[in-house]
């Protein structure tokens, strides 16, 4: 499988570049990338689902909201996802489905803490080769 994200060199925190064939896939890949950065994929079951909708006037707000909501599912409720699905309900409204399970430190390997999704240099856009985003996380 083609790598759907890569880490960028960054002075203080954690920056990634995410790729997607479609706009919906870009959002889904961003969600999955965030999960991979926090917890090792191996061992995360696919036994529970969390759904939520996000709406915003532009893609930057939408990307921030989609990721921040998912991050709080982990930080507050302890839910970790293995897979993310994104459905475009309309141009400014997305339905997010996260498939995973409760995080269990005895079974799952924690990699690093992400404290927040920043707006700093946040970028989403469509290029010749598909969709691309740059995201900086506060760690």
């Amino acid at each position, binding site marked *: 499988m083609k790598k759907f994200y890569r880490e960028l060199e960054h002075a203080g925190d954690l920056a990634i570049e995410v790729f997607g064939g479609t706009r919906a896939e870009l959002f889904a890949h961003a969600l999955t990338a965030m999960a991979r950065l926090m917890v090792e994929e191996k061992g995360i079951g696919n036994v529970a689902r969390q759904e939520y909708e996000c709406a915003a006037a532009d893609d930057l707000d939408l990307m921030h909201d989609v990721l921040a909501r998912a991050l709080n599912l982990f930080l507050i409720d302890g839910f970790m996802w293995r897979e993310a699905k994104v459905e475009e309900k309309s141009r400014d409204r997305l339905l997010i489905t996260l498939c995973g399970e409760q995080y269990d430190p005895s079974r799952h390997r924690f990699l690093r803490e992400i404290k*927040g999704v920043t707006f700093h240099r946040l970028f989403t856009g469509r290029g010749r080769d598909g969709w691309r985003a740059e995201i900086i996380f506060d760690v």
Partner: protein
Amino acid sequence: MELRRIQDYLWEIPRHGEMRVPGRVYASKQMIDELREDPALNQVENVACLPGIVGYSLAMPDIHWGYGFPIGGVAAIDAADGVISPGGVGYDINCGVRLLLTKLKRADIEQHVDRLADALFAAIPAGVGSHGAIPSLSLAELKKVVRDGIGWAVANGYATPADVEHIEEGGCLASADPDAVSAQAYQRGHRQLGTLGSGNHFLECGEVDEIYQPKDAKALGLEMGQVTVLIHSGSRGLGHQTCDDYLKVIGRTAERYGIKLPDRQLAAAPTKSPEGQAYLGAMAAAANFAWCNRQIIAHLAERAFMEALSLNPNELGFSLVYDVCHNIAKFEEHVVDGKKMRLCVHRKGATRAFGPGHPALAPKLRALGQPVLIPGDMGRYSFVLIGLEHAMRETFGSTCHGAGRVLSRHQAKRAARGRDLVEELARAKVVIRATSRATLAEEMPAAYKDVANVVEVMEAAGVSRRVARLKPFAVIKG
């Protein structure tokens, strides 16, 4: 970028484009040479564009890239018709440092350092998602914490009334509005009081290994060889979520208020707008939470010292020197162009450093000036400074806050590969207890500038002066 040398340690970015004021950077020639291509200087320019900014967009010598505002930035904004910016405070609202003294000398506990480190590491939750330092609080009780700050800690036996005089703002911003804090922020913070967290937060046991100003040191109770405790932490998930909530709210109002943002993370709203007022109430609430957090960590540290060393409170003599915040916005009076103004001073990675005689200082400290605590890295040293009168004229009563990173987290991890940092630090007589080896690598001493160079610049500029240096011997990390 054009940089004009104003004095030996002061450089100016002339006003141009949308800048409302010039930028000013405190730095040595070597620091400036290293900074010239750094995006942090562009951030100084961006901050200079904010409506209502007066004087200069300032950068301290520990300046480095931040989100929107640089870390090490100070912006004083007219309270009457200027803006408030959550990005100018940062995610970790009232991240700060407190210094405690003991009656112990390092030589007295030489044989017990490992036991002490173990006790502190067991007593103070550290690391990712750390919680459970004290019994979980109900939402109603948590709202009292964010409303009353240190007053809550005193009422609940975690602080004494004497502590209050040794904390910036007495450990409570009265403008706190518990209802302006979101449910998510309370959920993230409700089990985190008394926890260090991760990243660059720490508890450091050190000894006074150099005194620069004997009179000032004596006034603060500092003696050579004395064991000290330095705590660096902030408002944990509660503050982080509060910043995130209001970046979103305020970012969406920019167009309505006619504010042009060179960077969305600089989101700002008029101070008097409903959104600005709500943020100020929430920010103050998170600041109060942070003061309680550091207070409870200190309380837990005192107990750990007593248990590990079999001492009673009198023998240990734990006492608070001072507690400073370095991520906050506060209303202060300063003289600008000969006129007294009420300003909202944003300090992001900068420390208040009021000079002698300032009425905001507690009577015990007023003649001396404000103590300022500047942590370095875990291998070298930290500093105790005093704010000087010159700071009031030049930096809105502000100075530096720490060393500043020199390696990115990635670079630090690469540099640490194949090395045993715990062993290396042990050879340097520093005992480390950390929850994560990755964090330890990211926070290795070589990842930071030499903080001595940073405090020297501020001393040469006449803003703050060194009182004492603290050498770490046991460090607890997340």
